């Protein structure tokens, strides 16, 4: 409860600062140092992608990041500067390297919690969970969570702990402005059903469901998800392509694997080709976006949809 109050106050205060910050975007960290009450931490080691993505979104360059090459392929934005240290596999961030680098603080996803006691020997640990889970069981439950709201709160809390509270407030305020702008841009698509998928092979695809972060993006933008049932705890399901024929009006929006999808479309694979969306050339290809990255991921999808969806009507990409 109290979290929410501080959050909204922070938002009010930071509106004006936001404009400043936007004008001098690269200078964000400096600005924060001057303004914040707690000293901003400098050597922040990110132990997972979502943490790194959120730190980078605030303009903070993390000291470390696991699997940097794969991050550049699969998360893409915000971009990773070259001076970030490679930390090894996401499942096993290299503790010897962390120890040698002497970070001020470690930021990690709770799924690395079994490591917490060992990590605390190296530096204080802050847990950051961009994706919320309904209930105790990690199964799709009947209690829907607004993932964007959850991600914003988590980001605000993380940033405050690290001494970057103001940047976070500004970023969050900017995000809600971007959501409204994109909603206006996409007004012609209001209520239009869209399948949000990620093609796996010629027979199967991931489909993003009603309990995903991307569903909440749809809600913000006034778009309608053509897939209506909840999926796994992470908000997706693996389904056969024929199930995408259920809604014959839907636009097909594919995230990532652009070459695979273009290849599959070019090869005229029977089931894919028979889908109404493909027949009537209502297919949009978007680049990769991390589906459990919280607010920055939601913003990225928003920007991509706002810029690509209007181009797609009637025109088949690739």
């Amino acid at each position: 409860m109290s979290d929410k109050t501080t959050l909204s106050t922070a938002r009010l205060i930071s509106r004006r600062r936001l404009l400043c910050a936007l004008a001098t975007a690269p200078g964000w960290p400096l600005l924060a140092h001057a303004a914040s009450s707690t000293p901003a931490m400098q050597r922040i080691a990110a132990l997972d992608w979502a943490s790194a993505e959120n730190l980078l979104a605030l303009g903070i360059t993390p000291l470390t990041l696991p699997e940097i090459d794969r991050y550049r392929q699969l998360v893409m934005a915000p971009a990773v500067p070259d001076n970030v240290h490679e930390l090894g596999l996401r499942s096993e961030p290299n503790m010897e390297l962390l120890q040698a680098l002497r970070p001020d603080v470690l930021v990690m996803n709770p799924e690395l919690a079994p490591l917490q006691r060992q990590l605390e020997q190296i530096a204080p640990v802050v847990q950051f969970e961009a994706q919320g889970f309904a209930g105790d069981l990690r199964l799709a439950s009947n209690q829907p969570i607004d993932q964007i709201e959850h991600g914003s709160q988590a980001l605000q809390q993380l940033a405050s702990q690290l001494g970057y509270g103001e940047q976070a407030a500004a970023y969050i305020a900017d995000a809600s402005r971007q959501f409204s702008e994109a909603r206006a841009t996409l007004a012609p698509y209001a209520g239009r059903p869209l399948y949000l998928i990620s093609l796996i092979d010629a027979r199967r695809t991931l489909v993003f469901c009603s309990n995903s972060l991307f569903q909440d993006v749809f809600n913000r933008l006034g778009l309608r998800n053509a897939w209506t049932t909840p999926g796994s705890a992470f908000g997706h399901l693996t389904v056969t392509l024929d199930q995408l024929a259920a809604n014959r009006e839907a636009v097909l929006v594919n995230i990532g694997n652009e070459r695979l999808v273009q290849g599959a479309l070019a090869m005229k694979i029977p089931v894919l080709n028979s889908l109404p969306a493909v027949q009537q050339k209502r297919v949009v290809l978007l680049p990769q976006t991390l589906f459990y990255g919280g607010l920055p991921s939601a913003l990225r999808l928003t920007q991509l949809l706002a810029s690509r969806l209007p181009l797609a009507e009637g025109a088949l990409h690739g």
Partner: protein
Amino acid sequence: MVDHAVASNAPLRATPVRLLPALLGVGALLLCVLLIWANFQRQLPGTLWWQAITQPDTTATDQVMLHFTYLPRLVVAVLAGAALALAGAIFQHLLRNPLAEPATLGISAGAQLALSIATVWFPAALYIGKLWVAMAGAGIALFAVMGLAWRQGLSPVTVTLTGLIVSLYCSTLSAVIALFNHDMLIGLFLWGAGYLDQNDWSSALYLLPRLSVLALLALVLLRPLTILGLDDSSARSLGVPVSWFRFAALALSVALTAMTVAVVGVISFIGLAAPAVARLLGARRLGQQLLWSPVCGALLLLTTDQLVQLLPTTYRAFPTGAMTALLGAPLLLVLLPRLKEAQPLLHSASQAVRRVQRPLLITLSLLLLVPVLLWVALCAGHDASGWHWLASTDELSQGLLQLRYPRAVAAFCGGAMLALAGGILQRMTGNPMAAPEVLGIASGAMLGVIVLMFTAVAPTRAMQIGAGAAGALLVLLGMLLLSRREHFSGSRLLLAGVAISSVSGLIMAVLKSAQDPRLGQLLSWLAGSTYHVVAAEALWSVLVLLVGMALIPLIARWLTLLPLGVQTAASLGLNRRAASLSLLLLTAILTAAATISVGPLSFVGLMGPHFARMAGFQRAGSQLLVATLFGGLVLLVSDWLGRTLIFPFQIPAGLLAAIIGGPFLLHLIARRT
């Protein structure tokens, strides 16, 4: 045919004994027909069935679906089930091992490895033909097995062992690729789970003629195959060129499997369970087994697949290939007490015994290597700027030592415990394929950890250990209950363990194909990573290992006497059941303790005892001791290399041990004549 067999071969076993299997068979058939009917009913009204089957109205979606997805799927299920079962029956007969199945010879693993490599590095190859890539992988694995076992005249024991190791080796390499590229491999994980859904008739029409020809060839080979079931010298005296016929029969079953696997993906368990079920239903002679195994296999896969299709939409995405384990495992467990105990495959009986020259010297050198290598593993490391040797006592060095010693100690103890457990199992059952993970205890620990991972929001290390131990304990209790019954011992227990392992295989396959972001963690733990071990756990594993090693002199006598048979053992004053039970308990505890710290990928449990035996340590006590030391050292060195070779990335010790140890073990097997 069944009745005829009863009359001619086993007059003592009267009809009532066969009643349960017969009832089960008829019941399964009825269930299958009922399920097919229900699935038809669900899709179309009865009046349109015939039209949809013969000439579907292409504008009606439901008729198109029935004709182009449901029917081909049904045909593919029957064909794949029959082919895998036939291949399994031939393998089991030829290798004289009830644990042999198509996967034993590395066919699925080879195909999977080839597909992994193609997906990550040569995606264009998949456009040319996924089928060809898979077949090439399977073929190369087969040639490796045949080449290595050829000098032994393709003897059953050698082929089984080589096949198992090649298979494990391929899966290890696939696991390494998956560990570093799992984001790219979701399509492959789906194939690995064995989905049967079809888009058209192409797979069915591909399989039908090819499998029919291969089945006919199997019929031609029936007589030589029967003779090959005897021991080699009798076969030769009957004028059979043993190696060549064995080669032909193996190639035939591999072709059957490779085609099926390439088309439908990995279907677990059918090749193992169907022949066992057929034997239990009364198929005793080879001809009967070759007829009834495919029938059982087809029925098993078809029933499973129809069940899967009846599930609610959300769960219909469950892979049929892995689900077979859910039906097959209980069936096998129920029928196991009826299984004829297979002939134990004693190495020493069939092969010339080479005794080691200076056993004490080798054992002492191995013992001395332990502190030396431990010291190297602790001090030699890698950092962002290159290699270093910890000499100073500054804060950083102290911190690094604190990080290094638990995993080095745990790696050594884990490897040693697994090798000891493997040695006991191989001695006890006389089966060279016996290894701790086969007993299902490692699978139990793994399932416990997986369940925790998906129920607790932020599991701590202590919770993980608790969950792993609980899983292992549950399986252990089950095993002990089974083994208390008179019918369960040796091979039967191993089969029960394989059944449990395949259930955990199902769960892994489903998890892998679900695109869960926590997959990476699971994969690295499964790969035998010591990354998470903390000091207290390392000390505990030292304690368990020391107790285990202290028991070696006590159990050595049992292990020498047990394989001599019930009468001999009893006349020498051994309580066979008490001894078996104690040995089993010890193995289970060792396995559980090792699995929790170094993961269930315990290649070392298989490798350690074989190394000791091939080095010339034939007596139970010395074999166990050398195996233990060897297993520990292999994992210790692997852990050190894995930590430093590709810094800051790390290769799990279990995987690296397999990568280093596999070729070495194969070399030993191939060289020995």
